[in-house]
């Protein structure tokens, strides 16, 4: 088991390296370090001297990928790329363009991101499965039909509309919760209710429909027929057998997503003023803060790979037939 996890981790290294190269190339073709310096030093009275100074201080005064002025291996290591990539693998993301430590910022912002993403995920999962079960239980009846139509309609609405409408109605017209903001501890509740509710509602359409197909597929299997033949009630078949067997795909589907919850939601967080990683990313994109975006890309890729490894492990845990080679 441990050997397997180690092997997977090693397999992740070239992927992370690839991610690093891709983003590096993309971003340095967009912004030369001169541009970054100019952006940072402000709009008025920027001189070339100040730009050079700024670059030197942040280690952007070296060649990008190849330093012809150095000897031997230093030709490759004394470059911006090498400098900036090595730290990343040690989760030392360096400083943002405004001089703040990125790793520290990420630690501070993970909490608020999780405070939204985790309830949306957990409540969403429960609600979606419940809806799907109801539809499957009443399959081929008007309830099922109405449910499916509702699902398709709900998934045809852009997520932006849910947020705009929710904020307008619940916060502005009905004064039920604050429009935006965040607080620590229990005070956070009033700020979180609406974004979580919107997150859950906007996910019902696609989610419930997906689980419905999953259950229906499971219903068509032989063991279900056997169970029915045994004289088990429909509810017993559904809840005892189908749900249990469908848990494997549900679980493994969920496990992939869990690590990525840390990244937060871009749109929700910026609409509701939640100081999480999602709004951090948006700000960084808008400000073209290369260091932060690269850190977020790396973190996202890392979490994705963690998710893949976790999925493999969870497969073995829930289904003893599968062995890790």
């Amino acid at each position, binding site marked *: 088991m441990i050997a397997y996890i180690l092997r997977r981790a090693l397999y992740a290294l070239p992927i992370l390296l690839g991610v690093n190269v891709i*983003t590096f190339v993309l971003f340095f073709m*967009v912004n030369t370090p001169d541009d970054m310096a100019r952006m940072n030093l402000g709009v008025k009275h920027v001189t070339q001297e100040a730009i050079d100074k700024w670059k030197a201080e942040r280690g952007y005064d070296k060649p990008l990928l190849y330093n012809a002025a150095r000897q031997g291996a230093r030709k490759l290591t004394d470059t911006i790329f090498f400098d900036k990539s090595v730290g990343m693998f040690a989760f030392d993301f360096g400083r943002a363009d405004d001089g703040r430590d990125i790793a520290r910022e990420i630690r501070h912002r993970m909490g608020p991101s999780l405070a939204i993403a985790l309830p949306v995920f957990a409540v969403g999962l429960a609600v979606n499965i419940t809806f799907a079960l109801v539809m499957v239980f009443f399959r081929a009846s008007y309830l099922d039909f109405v449910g499916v139509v509702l699902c398709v309609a709900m998934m045809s609405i852009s997520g932006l509309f849910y947020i705009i409408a929710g904020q307008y109605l619940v916060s502005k017209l009905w004064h039920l919760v604050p429009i935006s903001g965040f607080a620590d501890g229990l005070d956070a509740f009033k700020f979180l209710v609406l974004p979580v509710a919107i997150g859950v509602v906007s996910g019902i359409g696609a989610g419930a429909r997906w689980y419905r197909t999953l259950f229906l597929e499971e219903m068509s299997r032989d063991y279900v027929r056997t169970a029915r033949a045994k004289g088990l009630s429909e509810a017993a078949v559904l809840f005892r057998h189908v749900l249990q067997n469908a848990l494997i795909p549900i679980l493994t589907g969920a496990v992939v997503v869990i690590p990525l919850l840390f990244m937060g939601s871009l749109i929700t967080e910026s609409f509701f003023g939640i100081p999480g990683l999602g709004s951090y990313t948006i700000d960084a994109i808008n400000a073209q803060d290369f260091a932060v975006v690269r850190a977020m890309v790396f973190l996202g890729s890392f979490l994705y790979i963690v998710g893949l490894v976790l999925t493999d492990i969870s497969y073995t845990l829930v289904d003893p037939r599968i062995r890790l080679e």
Partner: protein
Amino acid sequence: MIQPVILWTDALIFLLLAATVAFFLYARRQPHLRDPLRRVARSRVGMASMVVLAAYVAIGLLDSLHFRPALPGKPGAGVQYAVETLSVLDWLAAPLREQVEKTYSAPLATHAYAKEVVELPGGGEARDFPRLKYGGAQLADPAADKWPDITTRAFKAEAMALAGWFLAAVGLCAWLAQRGGEGLSAAWRDVWRGKTPIPWRTGLLTWGALLLLAFPAVALSTHYHILGTDKVGQDVFFQTLKSVRTGLVIGTLTTLVMLPFAVLLGIMAGYFRGWVDDVIQYLYTTLNSIPGVLLIAAAVLMMQVWMESNPDLFDTVAARADARLFFLCAILGVTSWTGLCRLLRGETLKLRELDYIQAAQAFGVSHGRIILRHILPNLMHIVLITVVMDFSGLVLAEAVLSYVGVGVDPTMQSWGNMINSARLEMAREPMVWWTLAAAFLFMFVLVLFANLFADTVRDAFDPRARR
């Protein structure tokens, strides 16, 4: 006198159209594709959604025929063309495009939405809602005449719609009658009792509903702004129509761009296995592991720089916006091919173990031939399902990307840009809701029917999902 202009996306749209036609001609001869397609056509939901989607596609195609009108010139001098590129839709909807008010006005309004100082006829000034320049300008007394005028116009249009619909229905029945070798009335009866294998009744009813909505909209839009006007007084209805093309282009061209990658790499990985498989898997796992929005943002920014350094290639606003749209499709395609690639790889792995392919290999048939003759045709249904399923997601994604600031060009009409600007309008007092509502309505209908259509296609092709 006009000068036709073919934008990059126009060319691709027509290429896509040709490819679609070619695909259907090809599929007619392939039973494993023909039968499911027939099932799609025979489904009521499939028929209804095809009619609605066809209407959207028609708008989109009209908006894809571009030209530059000639400038009014002096006799003797050579003909010069305007910089502005127009489409056939622009030309057809010229009144909508040209009747520009000063600023906001509500749907069907005759007066502006905010009070202004108006000069009274007898001299002096007062604060009041000024009359619109075009909206309801034909009315002498808007307070009394507006609604009767609107109802009359609407009714006239409805009558025309009904007549038009009736003609279409009769035409269809006549065609059916001729094909089936029966009388017109018999065909009519079959259609109305729902006895035809293809649910023509559903199609006709949907068509009728569309006509009943479209005719009054068109009839009223020449004298009113039926969905209001925006900040600079442009007709929101017209903007929404213009956005249709953007949505369709994003939804379809993206998959067109991604298809060659996904198909080629997917088949290669599954067919050759070994190191080829390893490299391709590495490639898509790496790309897949980067958060999508970030990758798109980085790529869009890069593309802007490239366009900036090559300004000569894009001489007009339309060409620039169009190139950006095209690149956005390409970028979305490059970041989203991994899913299809993985599916195709898996399926190819299965296929290559089949006896007849093993046999072909044993006979020394070249790899290229095996792939073209035996593998590719058996993957077509997966490709088709993916293309159709991805469409609605891409249309929705455009709105979100525009919000993040990495969507289509800000000068391009799109639902994402409309929603984006509507967010500020919601804060106005009184609220300006119509831009948001219009974008919502048109986008919702398109995505809804695209989803329904995708369901039908998947059910038809995927034997497991059929009940």
